[in-house]
């Protein structure tokens, strides 16, 4: 039987994108609450403000657009908010409703799958809450002003489940994963507080102290 998480144990869904990018980044934000708001994230926020209106609904043709929809999944153990859900109701196909999720991102498509993972996690929540199936969703990027379709295939679904499980595992231990200094650090907004180079100097403390003592002996 699948494990169901208690409400108290749910983790922030938004964390899954950080986690997919770098486990340590997620740890710093969600375990250590170390987060400096820099210009980039402020831009991201402002862009979100426009879609962040829970009382807003709009209908375009047969598509109803709702914003800021609370989400939760007890099997993934995640909770969060979807930016936009588009609900399509076809009169002609016996009241079958089609849900699709759109997530707004500043910037442009990334080389890794963090945005797809986040979108799919949202879809899994919605599937669980409404007992429906959602086959695809969209990522909209501010810089390219373009929406990209994302298929929720089994491969992506499994990846989301594995990430969520590992997030819970690390969260329970309360341990921020150690830094692995690599090339993505360069683009990481948490570089300055992560100080990934520190992972290399771990063993230097003894040497450093011996040097201090040696200096005291020179007189």
């Amino acid at each position, binding site marked *: 039987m699948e494990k169901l998480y208690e409400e108290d144990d749910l983790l922030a869904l938004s964390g899954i994108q950080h986690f997919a990018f770098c486990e340590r980044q997620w740890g710093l934000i969600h375990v250590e609450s170390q987060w400096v*708001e820099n210009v980039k994230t402020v831009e991201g926020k402002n862009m979100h403000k426009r879609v962040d209106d829970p009382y807003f609904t709009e209908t375009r043709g047969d598509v109803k657009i709702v914003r800021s929809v609370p989400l939760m999944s007890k099997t993934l153990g995640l909770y969060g908010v979807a930016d936009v859900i588009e609900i399509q109701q076809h009169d002609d196909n016996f009241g079958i409703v089609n849900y699709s999720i759109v997530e707004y991102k500043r910037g442009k498509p990334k080389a890794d799958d963090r945005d797809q993972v986040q979108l799919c996690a949202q879809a899994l929540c919605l599937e669980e809450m409404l007992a429906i199936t959602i086959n695809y969703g969209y990522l909209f990027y501010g810089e390219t002003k373009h929406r990209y379709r994302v298929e929720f295939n089994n491969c992506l679904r499994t990846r989301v489940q594995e990430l969520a499980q590992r997030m819970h595992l690390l969260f329970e231990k309360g341990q921020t994963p*150690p830094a692995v200094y690599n090339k993505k650090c360069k683009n990481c907004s948490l570089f300055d507080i992560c100080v990934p180079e520190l992972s290399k100097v*771990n063993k230097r403390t*003894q040497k450093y102290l011996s040097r201090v003592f040696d200096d005291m002996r020179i007189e």
Partner: protein
Amino acid sequence: MRKMLNVLYITNPEAYLAKDGENLVVRVQDEEIFRTPIHYLEGIVTFGYMGASPALLGMCVEKGVTVSFLTAHGKHQATVHGTPKGNVLLRRKQYRLADSESESAKLASMFIIGKIANCRTVLRRFMSDYGDKVQIEEVDRVSKIMARNVLRLGKELLLDEVRGIEGESAQMYFSVFDQLIICHKDHFFMKGRNRRPPLDNMNALLSFLYSLLLHETRSALETVGLDPYVGFLHRDRPGRTGLALDLMEEFRPYLVDRLALSLINRRQVTGDGFLKKESGGVIMKENVRKIVIEAWQKRKREEITHPFLEKKIYVGLLPYAQALLLARHLRGDLDRYPPFVWK
């Protein structure tokens, strides 16, 4: 390393701090005298009794800017800051270690190693700068005692032994401090440390600078998620920021004592900037406070190669760097805490 943002110091007791959009605005008698976007700041420190609007405090809390209210003499009264940062597990580790005498002694040794080694460097720098002009035998002797005391701290000690070495070193150091003052000897002298209240100009100047430093170590610790109140060398006492005082030790000689000496020896502050009150306590006049704060701000913008991290950082980021290393040590990422030792 993290970017260095500014700390805004406000000394005019008539100032009122308000919010306008995303800006901090300082007004004196309804007239705007200063304005800055809030995201340029990491802290605001006020001296004296000025007001701040709830809207401004709300914005500061939201943006992670700490606002500290100090008395005109630099005594801490209150701080406004947001939800504590960091991992509760890290703080529990801190409390567990602080509960253990032997673990506390180990960490206390490290802070004091930093302090005494840096005191020694203050003395040695002085000898190499002025050795040909003034008598330095006594300074030299004390510097050697400092070196010996650092070595003593390398052994495993009881907390009281660490305190003993600290006390003895401080007393010796301040016994020759007077010789390091080479100008205005009749206005500035050191006949021992006194704080509550400072009884002479030198002590008033030092106390004021230490209060600026304490503010920095305190917020550095908060930033990395440690509890500034629970120290290892400085044991718990209500209202005392024990860990902030611990962390401050290694910076006292390097950041404060040298700055105080150079302000005097370069004649940037003079005796008439100080006021002896009827009780014998000495306070600094506002114009001197301004000069001192300016010098402090300038010092923070200088660069130094961090001896352990081996990279260039702003002097103003030193407390943060050390707080970070301390958090890493408590978390178990670093096997020892490397104190800041300046050569």
